[in-house]
């Protein structure tokens, strides 16, 4: 006898053509240990309500159509075991579309913004490919490994719709587009790397607006780890001389200024150095409040001059920076 568990599913329901507001509908069912979230979506449709809508196609974790959120966790529903979700969240599962504000019908969303951004970074090898090749193009082991599994992306959109930076700033390319930008930029056959690096270096739309929350790494069903590629794109900007001196690049490089002097980041200096003298004015009200409460403190010296203690063996840090630094701004 195979055991089953009785669960309650609360599913987001909305029809953009007829409904004023979305609502949740509850379905109860016995679930077996081998059933996937996709099976549960099917059972809602087949056993309870034929009008329930969701995308599905391959059932093999490769087409990227069937992504939804279960209790807030982005999942590719054909890859996610229902028992695993019950273990994480208990016997009440909440099914939501990837993005509620983009819902068209139930689990189906309008992914236009995802595809627009994905297309904008030229997600293909842009090179002089011989139309009648006589042999395959060779890549070294290092070149292949350097792609870092970024080519496993199936464009499901899980990372894109989990990204809080995108929610706050609609210009932002988002993690999936960045992963693709990295994947094709490091492809030795491609000639558009410079262009992609310049696009993704722009403040507002580019990698500098990433908030470092790791939601994308957590959301990816294929272990693409988009934030790792975002960091690589940051690095590539400096390696290939694309980085312009601006508030974000100075902020990254400026960490070394304090570290060479005391071993610590110099919290006051990093703001001044990144923003420049003119940009400092907007931080003055906050700085005054911080001074008043003692967050910028005078007890050990004057801010900007000698207020920070030094670490022990500071010479080691200076020496390691000297011999290990590989990039320049």
């Amino acid at each position, binding site marked *: 006898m195979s055991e089953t568990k009785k669960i309650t599913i609360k599913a987001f329901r909305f029809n953009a053509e007829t409904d004023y507001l979305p609502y949740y509908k509850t379905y109860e069912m016995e679930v077996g240990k081998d059933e996937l979230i996709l099976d549960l979506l099917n059972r809602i449709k087949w056993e309870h309500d034929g009008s329930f809508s969701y995308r599905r196609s391959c059932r093999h974790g490769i087409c990227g159509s069937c992504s939804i959120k279960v209790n807030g966790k982005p999942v590719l529903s054909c890859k996610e075991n229902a028992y695993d979700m019950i273990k994480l969240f208990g016997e009440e599962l909440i099914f939501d579309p990837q993005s509620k504000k983009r819902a068209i019908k139930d689990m189906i969303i309008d992914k236009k913004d995802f595809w627009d951004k994905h297309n904008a970074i030229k997600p293909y090898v842009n090179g002089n490919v011989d139309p009648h090749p006589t042999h395959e193009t060779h890549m070294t082991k290092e070149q292949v490994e350097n792609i870092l599994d970024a080519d496993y992306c199936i464009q499901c959109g899980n990372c894109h719709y989990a990204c809080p930076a995108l929610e706050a700033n609609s210009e932002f390319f988002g993690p999936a587009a960045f992963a693709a930008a990295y994947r094709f930029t490091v492809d030795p056959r491609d000639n558009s790397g410079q262009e992609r690096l310049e696009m993704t270096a722009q403040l507002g739309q580019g990698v500098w607006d990433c908030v470092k929350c790791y939601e994308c790494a957590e959301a990816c069903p294929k272990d693409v780890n988009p934030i790792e590629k975002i960091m690589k794109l940051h690095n590539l900007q400096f390696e290939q001389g694309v980085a312009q001196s601006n508030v974000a690049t100075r902020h990254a490089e400026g960490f070394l200024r304090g*570290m060479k002097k005391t071993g610590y980041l110099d919290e006051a200096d990093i703001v001044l150095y990144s923003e420049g003298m003119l940009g400092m004015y907007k931080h003055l009200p906050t700085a005054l409040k911080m001074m008043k409460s003692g967050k910028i*403190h005078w007890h050990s010296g004057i801010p900007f001059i000698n207020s920070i203690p030094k670490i022990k063996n500071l010479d080691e840090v200076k020496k*390691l920076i000297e011999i290990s630094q590989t990039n320049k701004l």
Partner: protein
Amino acid sequence: MSQLHYALFTGCTAKQSTPELLSSTLAVAEKLGIKITILEEASCCGASHLQDFDEFLAHVLNARNICYAEKLGLTMITICNTCQINSAMTKHKLDNDPEYRARVNEKLAEVGLEYKGTSQIKHFLYALIEDYGLENIKDRVKTPLSRFNIAPFYGCHNIRPSELQHESNGGENPYNPTSLDSLIAALEGHPVNYASKNKCCGFHVELQANHTSEILAGNALLDALDNNADLMVTPCPLCHLKMDTYQDSIGKVMGRDIELPVLHMPQMVALALGCTEKEIGLKYHVSKAKHLYTA
């Protein structure tokens, strides 16, 4: 239980803008009989920004910090989520890539150090819960926090990516973390359940994407307030800085007045264990918090 002994990686903020974090951490450890050796040699972790500039250099410098915990033969504890993730990511990389470790060790050899991979790295929150134990903390409570609704704010770098974090955070579910909630309950406070508790505070883009930063912090603060929080508590001083220091400007972006004390996790524990006003250091907060202390 034999005495717990840790090597403390303070990070930069505890030595600069949040002295209350360091003093309350040390006070809590003393009350609980936990021995702390401060790693005075440890430098900045790079906070992910140095990593964006020069990944290899950041790995070398983080490995150096870990070397000092290894020399003492102790587990390294952190009191900042971002120090935690950057140290733990370095450890993970070096422990799993012998070729890369050799490259890093080549540099470290120039200053007479070697990374061996013998020290664990965990955040103080999980040292308290996993090693010391909630039941034992409960027994030491002098001033129960039963008068407060406390909103736990976990901070990204303790819970994601879960595969890495599960090496040291007791298997926390990043979509429904519970450790801080159970700690609040152990101190007899009332944990506030709200959707933003595992979300991002926006600190890391404070300078270059200020609007994004203010919106993310604002969403979390208002969510906590709307669920009747009297105060918020976080294990991360960067979350603290964003949420405590910028409430005025966040309020302007969100179109609502925001006033909510944001405590460091050790400050909350220190309040319940009966540490002194000076040790808890509520006067260092920008958003009023002094009233939370009652002798």
